[in-house]
């Protein structure tokens, strides 16, 4: 055997490992840096007043309360719309649909909904909710737009959750005389719940962070008052960050980083929560 060749192979092996490892570092390191920079520079801005008071002095002072509240309204509205619809769609695909042309079409539609650019959702929301249904730029128009955008997230997660429930659960329930819906309701859904919850939280996180879909459907540059009905415009956190970092010159760095930190915290906590729920569920599952 040629020893030089073996040596070459060893060196190759080492180089390959090193290259793959460093590409992973290059992917992960910037994330850590971004988080670190935002936390370090933003933490000083966080105070009770920053979170719970109105912006003052052309957004140069005061807090971000209306934007924070607006985002909560929008996210709540989006989930109220998307969760029932997404869950029922998943139930249809997993429990009812046969593998035919229609169900394949539904799956193709979901794949495409997941890929539609967020700004196109914004256009759609503007065309249908703001203009066609005469909602105007309002919380309801923004919520529905965001709801449609997170629909594929919720459907996909719920589908996986339902599919992970063993077939035997259904067979036993049906053999005891339960109807199809009773079986789904009492023998399938309870076991799929953590997975559905995970999907819902991921959807919440996505809706909280998106800017483009709310640009033309609800988001206001600045409002002196809090919204009082679902037909009012509102400020929203991601749009507020966009406004103070590009549209208004001279906003202090502290306020910008503080706003970014609050948004990032909100979204990452939701995602972390979803990851934990999922891994707990996977460990516990023993069928």
């Amino acid at each position: 055997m040629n020893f030089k060749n073996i040596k070459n192979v060893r060196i190759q092996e080492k180089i390959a490992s090193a290259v793959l490892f460093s590409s992973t570092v290059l992917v992960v390191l910037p994330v850590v840096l971004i988080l670190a920079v935002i936390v370090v520079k933003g933490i000083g801005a966080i105070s009770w007043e920053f979170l719970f008071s109105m912006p003052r002095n052309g957004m140069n002072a005061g807090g971000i309360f209306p934007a924070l509240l607006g985002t909560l309204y929008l996210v709540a509205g989006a989930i109220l719309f998307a969760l029932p619809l997404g869950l029922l769609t998943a139930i249809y695909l997993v429990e009812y649909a046969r593998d035919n042309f229609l169900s394949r079409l539904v799956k193709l539609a979901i794949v495409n909904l997941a890929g539609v650019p967020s700004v196109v959702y914004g256009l759609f929301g503007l065309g249908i909710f703001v203009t066609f249904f005469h909602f105007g730029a309002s919380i309801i128009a923004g919520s529905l737009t965001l709801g449609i955008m997170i629909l594929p997230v919720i459907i996909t997660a719920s589908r996986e959750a339902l599919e992970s429930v063993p077939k035997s659960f259904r067979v036993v329930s049906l053999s005891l005389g339960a109807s199809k819906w009773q079986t789904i309701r009492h023998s399938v859904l309870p076991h799929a719940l953590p997975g559905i919850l995970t999907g819902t939280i991921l959807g919440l996180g996505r809706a909280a962070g998106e800017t483009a879909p709310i640009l033309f459907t609800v988001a206001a540059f600045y409002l002196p008052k809090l919204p009082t009905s679902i037909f009012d415009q509102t400020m929203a956190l991601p749009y507020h960050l966009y406004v103070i970092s590009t549209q208004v010159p001279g906003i202090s760095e502290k306020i910008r980083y503080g706003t970014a930190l609050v948004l990032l915290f909100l979204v990452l906590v939701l995602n972390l929560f979803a990851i934990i729920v999922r891994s707990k569920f996977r460990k516990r599952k023993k069928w």
Partner: protein
Amino acid sequence: MNYRARKIKEYIIEKIIFLSGVTSIIVVLLIFIFLLKEGLSLFSTVSLKDFLLGRNWYPISNPPQYGILPLILGSLLVTVGAAVISIPLGVGSALYIAEIAPQRTREILKAGIELLAAIPSVVIGFIGLITLGPLIRNLFHLPTGLTALSGSVTLAFMAMPTIVSIAEDAITAVPRQYREAATAMGATRWQTTRRIVAIAARPGIIAALMLGIGRVIGETMAVMMVTGNAALIPHSLLQPVRTLTATIAAEMGETVQGGSHYAALFAIGIVLFIITFIINGVADIYLHKNLKKKTKK
């Protein structure tokens, strides 16, 4: 409950579920219809050729010119740049996570990648604006650091999570026997990874790349914040550019509803919708190829 009432209840529930099930199809159709409804009126004054291949995007001059070639090239340039950065890094780290990393590291890395995917694009844009912009300006001695290059770098990081997680799934799905057979024949780990695993997972990796690129093309906020927004035909990576998405987001607020500018922005939306529809459809086909292989063994 008596039998008859139960039957009726079942029937109603079944219909409700069916209706919800087909909503997705209806929504896709509605999106397309509403884009057409608002956008098609543009083509009564501008020909399709002038729209797609026109070299000037001057929506507010008189008479306005609606050529989106500079925007298409802007999107293309930024996307190609992002692909050049994110494809080798993404596939490399997917291979590392799936084949080399120990179990514990793997879980942590996967969670990290998932968190990267979750960072809102406006936050990434904000960071790019503050850090990358000045860096590129000083590095290349430019009048502005907000260029196609800063857009490419920023977008590369937005494509990475998609590429890594889907490619990693595809690599993990390669049956263990393949690896065992290669190892039994004396192949080293790297030889196995490169010649057996990477080839077997190829359709899934291609799907991952396509979905990553789809995300880049559709990305709006980050790209609008860091590319400098000049709607000119770009000649180098170090110039400001304007993408299709950013044009819609930046200009919709200033248009008159029902006017030609408004219609032109919806027409750009149609172009984007069609591009992403094709990319996602093809990626889905590749994903299913990977899946079929897996089940066949």
